């Protein structure tokens, strides 16, 4: 009810809405991929697949400790090292230690949201290590000094002219807005980095406990190079990104690439099971398994489901709110509907209160989600925490004035006579605001949020209830019952 004074969310949202590049790109992206995914699920030859994968995801979460232990054991048996990081700081510190030990001066990265979540890039850079993104989109936003604005399409907020100018400035090439020319320039610059880096740092799309390997999908081949060229490969994964068996891995992967970009399979799928056996060369593989608040989510039955997410980004491609505001408004590693649920849970519900409240609960994200995650239900549950505060989630009540207003509202809606009197009063009070067009065009306070851009039909002179009563005068019997009910308090 109380309009948040221009929060960061609103400010960034306004910027996004004002950007014609973003609007054009998001619109075509959503039309192609979001609506395409909706159609794809309807036409899926095996309609039970989504439910099966969801069930396996939830089953894995129920036994996560055992499955992760099994994964770690398998990776170690093959000469890889596994580190369980409790916090983002732990994970970054470990990665920095590995880099230092190997005298790393340059790190090439495969696209990884988890690496952004733990904030490892600034830690490495502060230690004098060059960090280079090798996914084309991530490389572009890195050159621009901006965070990614989509899980799969990081530079969706930029157009080729902006990228052309960026490349001319940063890579010293002649200005061009021809995509193949720009891609060749990026490839040329990245090839050098990939060949000279001492460490590759990637995420992990899926880890398989049965085989003790991680899988990485890409369409550019950069991940294959980043994981095989440098002598050291560090992969960082959220602890829920594991499946128990290869059979589950296969089906989950099928949903991942379909959900992400409607592909039956991505151009590259890299399986990494440990350090490569290269004669005359010491090679290392490190798997960093990050908790960073996930155990707490796992322990709460209301939110556990969000860990079933396979990070395909399909929800971004259908969400009408994300489709307007873009990714930067979410101010976290994860944007869109999934970000709106997972970022508050990982980083604080109060900190990301706008993400909990700033959606319409339209339900499109749930429908497009390959594993049918009920994000609207969880957004509603997050709002519940904000409404009253929650010790379990270390959350304080967001808006005491709003809470008071709803207590007042409760008082009215449970007392019909009072409710009716309140409506009549409101109808009187609004009179001076009604314009010639029988609309209210200007209101003050929070209600201005409506009338700044929209007219509001007034409260009718006579409510439906009053009209009904006029046409159907209560018989003595009904009148008596009505009187009884009106006085009744059901609290």
């Amino acid at each position: 009810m109380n309009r948040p004074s221009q929060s960061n969310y609103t400010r960034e949202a306004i910027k996004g809405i004002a950007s014609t590049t973003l609007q054009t790109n998001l619109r075509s992206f959503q039309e192609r991929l979001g609506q395409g995914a909706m159609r794809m699920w309807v036409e899926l030859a095996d309609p039970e697949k989504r439910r099966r994968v969801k069930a396996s995801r939830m089953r894995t979460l129920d036994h996560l400790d055992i499955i992760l232990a099994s994964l770690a054991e398998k990776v170690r048996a093959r000469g890889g090292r596994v580190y369980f990081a409790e916090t983002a700081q732990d994970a970054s510190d470990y990665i920095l230690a590995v880099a230092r030990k190997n005298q790393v001066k340059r790190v090439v990265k495969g696209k990884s949201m988890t690496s952004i979540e733990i904030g490892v890039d600034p830690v490495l850079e502060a230690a004098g290590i060059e960090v280079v993104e090798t996914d084309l989109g991530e490389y572009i936003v890195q050159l621009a000094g901006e965070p990614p604005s989509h899980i799969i399409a990081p530079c969706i907020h930029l157009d080729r002219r902006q990228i052309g100018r960026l490349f001319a400035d940063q890579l010293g090439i002649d200005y061009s807005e021809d995509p193949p020319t720009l891609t060749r320039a990026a490839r040329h610059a990245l090839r050098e980095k990939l060949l000279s880096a001492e460490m590759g740092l990637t995420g992990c799309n899926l880890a398989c406990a049965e085989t003790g390997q991680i899988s990485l999908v890409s369409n550019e081949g950069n991940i294959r190079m980043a994981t095989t060229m440098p002598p050291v490969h560090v992969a960082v994964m959220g602890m829920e990104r594991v499946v128990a068996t290869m059979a589950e891995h296969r089906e989950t992967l099928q949903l991942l690439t379909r959900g992400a970009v409607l592909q039956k399979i991505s151009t590259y799928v890299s399986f990494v099971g440990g350090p490569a056996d290269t004669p005359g060369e010491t090679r290392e593989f490190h798997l960093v398994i990050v908790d960073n608040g996930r155990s707490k989510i796992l322990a709460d039955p209301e939110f556990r489901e969000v860990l079933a997410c396979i990070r395909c980004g399909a929800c971004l491609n259908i969400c009408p709110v994300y489709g307007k505001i873009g990714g930067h408004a979410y101010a976290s590693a994860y944007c869109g509907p999934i970000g709106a649920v997972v970022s508050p849970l990982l980083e604080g519900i109060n900190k990301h209160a706008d993400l909990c409240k700033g959606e319409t609960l339209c339900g499109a994200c749930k429908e497009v989600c390959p594993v049918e995650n009920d994000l609207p239900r969880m957004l509603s549950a997050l709002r519940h925490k904000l409404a009253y505060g929650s010790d379990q989630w270390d959350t304080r009540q967001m808006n005491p004035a709003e809470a008071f207003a709803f207590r007042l509202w409760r008082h009215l809606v449970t007392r019909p006579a009072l409710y009716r009197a309140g409506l009549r009063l409101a109808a009187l009070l609004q009179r001076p605001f009604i314009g010639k067009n029988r609309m209210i065009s200007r209101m003050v306070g929070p209600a201005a949020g409506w009338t700044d851009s929209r007219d509001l039909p007034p409260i009718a002179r006579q409510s439906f209830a009053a009209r009904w009563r006029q046409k159907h005068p209560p018989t003595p019997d009904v009148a008596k019952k009505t009187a009884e009910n009106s006085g009744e308090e059901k609290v």
Partner: protein
Amino acid sequence: MANTTVSLFIQCLVDSMFPEVGEAMVTLFDRLGIPCRFPPDQTCCGQPAFNSGYRREAADAARHFIAVFEDAEVIVCPSGSCVHMVRHAYPLLFADEPAMLARAEAVAARTFELSQYLVDQLGLVEVGASYHGTVTYHDSCHLSRGLGVIDQPRQLLKGVEGLTLIEMRDSDTCCGFGGTFSVNYPEISTAMVDTKIDNILASGAGAVVGCDISCLMNILGRLSRRGEPVQVLHLAQVLAGAGQGGGQ
């Protein structure tokens, strides 16, 4: 089934701001010979509180609703989102109160949205209405995705004599209302309703029809501010045959 007395569940926004929609529903039921009653103590289903996170307050509104409608044979409402609230949120609110849960579920099972009741329960697609003009239909989120009611309103519209239904692009994309969202995040909400309105205008239809007055109020409010002449009608108004030229 047609002789079953319908208890009218008139959404608070319809009751207070769009009473003509409730009256249209009564006109329609009268024409179809469906007896109806209006439990006078009804207020609000509790959705505004629930969607804002105030579950205690929502639960109290739900208790009141259940007490008011408990003895109804069947409950019909001209709003998909209110029916969605009763059917899907009430059980959640009383998950830890078995006695209330049973009462809530019993009421939920007898609660229907207007088009759902006419088509699925009564098997009616022609209700003797006429409307001379073109309309486009907006799928409200809780009705289409929440309750799975997509074809029913369209079947009813196609059964209206003289009416031509023109589908708009992205008819099932949210209009940007979202309850308090529309007031708390007006810039985003307005950007969303603008896209909805662009799609309505592009359809070329003379009127937009929907089954949820909250969406329609949002669309109407923005259409009015933009000075667009498209009419905004609730399905009940079209089916009552009172829609043409009526508008809001």
